[in-house]
């Protein structure tokens, strides 16, 4: 056993590799996060690092979230030959800042960047001279060769993906960044490498993905335009992964991060058959749509009752048919109220039996171009009808790559730029939108008007006061 004086600082561990993967996010999000969602881990990073390591390509890890200053990051990224980054639109600002710092410190180093922003806004990525190689699309089929010999590829590389998620290895979650500081870990009860609880279920939280691509065409998202169709991860593989995580780390609850979990009825029926019998039937968060709830109500109810689906994320977005049409949601007010009434009824029934009722994670959008006050009032009325709900309210944001976003950018109406793609809730995003009205709305100023159209409101204005979240 080695003894050290209490004040002896152990030497900084020697790098295991000359290749560094940089996890991206706002400075300090793993040091002193304002909430649990800032601490969600990057599944793309996890998958690609796992593939690299399994193929003999070791990488070190740093994170913009694990430092509180760029100077602190600089000390960690000096001395590497290659920097890898998975760049989303909202992490584009820290990505290119980190790239500039890396090149100053390592002039001969190469930077390889991929991720969603490379796919939806390649021109912005290409405009950053520090990005030596930019990979569009999925990376799992190309990452090993690209990292081994990046100069064999053109500057803009087309990624190669698997045909099915069944081909993906299980993410080695120890390759994710760690929370910093014992106070942070204690505050969030964070048992890394699983993730901390965020109010959707008890920790430790196992997050995973069972499917890629929501095939619908909502114009604020439109990921179907960019991500190729892919076979869903087999139910047995998902169950094996959860049981592995439980054996090794202890699972408290699950978050299924699929863009659209409630699709593919054949898969869901197998899930209903196997998940309750082959796992500890942890409660989970997963996403659906109001029109699919209305299309398959029995399947939806069975998932809630039999598989413990307890936090139901639905992109209601608006309570107004006008706005739902503008967003190309292909759902109606009637679809939304059907889903709300059904979940309210199931919740009442479960509660009467002494069981935990399901709760909505209700995605709501305000500040949509063309929205009138009455549209917003209808949305708040709809929200008030949900008996059990976590409201997730954000201002509409015209992200590049989304159909409406591209059109608004072309019209010169977007207030977003590559310097402020950050997902801050209060940011004004579109010209011509009266954001003061929305701030007053969320402060409860119009509650009388909202309640005029409500027979029996479940909630008062406290439901949405101060409830703006990051878009």
């Amino acid at each position: 056993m080695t003894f050290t004086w209490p004040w002896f600082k152990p030497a900084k561990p020697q790098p295991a590799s000359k290749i560094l993967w940089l996890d991206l996010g706002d400075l300090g999000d793993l040091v002193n996060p304002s909430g649990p969602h800032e601490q969600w881990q990057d599944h793309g990073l996890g998958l690609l690092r796992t593939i690299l390591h399994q193929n003999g390509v070791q990488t070190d890890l740093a994170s913009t979230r694990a430092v509180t200053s760029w100077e602190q990051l600089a000390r960690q990224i000096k001395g590497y030959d290659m920097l890898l980054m998975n760049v989303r639109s909202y992490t584009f600002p820290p990505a290119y800042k980190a790239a500039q710092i890396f090149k100053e410190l390592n002039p001969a180093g190469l930077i390889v960047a991929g991720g969603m922003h490379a796919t939806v806004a390649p021109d912005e990525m290409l405009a950053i001279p520090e990005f030596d190689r930019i990979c569009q699309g999925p990376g799992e089929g190309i990452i090993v060769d690209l990292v081994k010999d990046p100069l064999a590829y053109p500057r803009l590389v087309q990624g190669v993906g698997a045909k099915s998620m069944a081909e993906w290895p299980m993410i080695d979650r120890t390759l994710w960044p760690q929370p910093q500081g014992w106070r942070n870990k204690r505050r969030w009860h964070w048992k890394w490498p699983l993730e901390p609880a965020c109010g959707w279920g008890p920790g430790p939280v196992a997050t995973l993905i069972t499917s890629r691509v929501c095939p619908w065409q909502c114009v604020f998202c439109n990921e179907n335009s960019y991500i190729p169709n892919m076979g869903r991860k087999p139910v047995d593989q998902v169950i094996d992964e959860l049981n592995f995580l439980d054996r090794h780390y202890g699972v408290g609850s699950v978050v299924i991060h699929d863009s659209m979990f409630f699709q593919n009825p054949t898969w869901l029926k197998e899930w209903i058959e196997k998940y309750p019998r082959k796992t500890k039937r942890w409660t989970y968060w997963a996403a659906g749509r109001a029109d699919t709830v209305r299309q398959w109500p029995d399947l939806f109810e069975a998932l809630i009752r039999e598989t413990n689906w307890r936090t139901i994320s639905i992109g209601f977005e608006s309570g107004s048919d006008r706005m739902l049409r503008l967003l190309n949601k292909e759902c109606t007010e009637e679809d939304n109220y059907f889903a709300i009434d059904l979940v309210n009824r199931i919740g009442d029934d479960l509660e009467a039996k002494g069981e935990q009722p399901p709760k909505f994670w209700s995605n709501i959008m305000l500040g949509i171009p063309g929205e009138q006050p009455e549209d917003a009032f209808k949305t708040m009325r709809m929200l008030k009808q949900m008996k059990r709900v976590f409201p997730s309210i954000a201002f509409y944001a015209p992200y590049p790559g989304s159909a409406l976003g591209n059109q608004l950018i072309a019209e010169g109406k977007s207030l977003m730029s590559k310097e402020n793609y950050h997902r801050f809730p209060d940011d004004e995003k579109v010209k011509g939108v009266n954001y003061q009205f929305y701030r007053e709305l969320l402060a409860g100023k119009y509650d009388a008007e909202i309640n005029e159209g409500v027979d029996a409101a479940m909630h008062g204005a406290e439901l949405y006061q101060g409830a703006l979240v990051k878009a």
Partner: protein
Amino acid sequence: MSSFSSPHFMYLFALKSGKKKLAYGQSPADALEILRIRLSEQEMSEIVADQFIKINQRDLQQYVGELG
């Protein structure tokens, strides 16, 4: 109007400026009505209503540079 009973399609309408305007709906006429929700009368008057193509949403990125 759910996606099962009334699917939507994407259209690119010609603009008098030579650019294109993205719209979507159950039909070209419906798509123009949806545009009317957020565009001014002046902006609508720039659209050449009978000149449009229907596009697959996966092809949308090809036309981003032509939008106006």
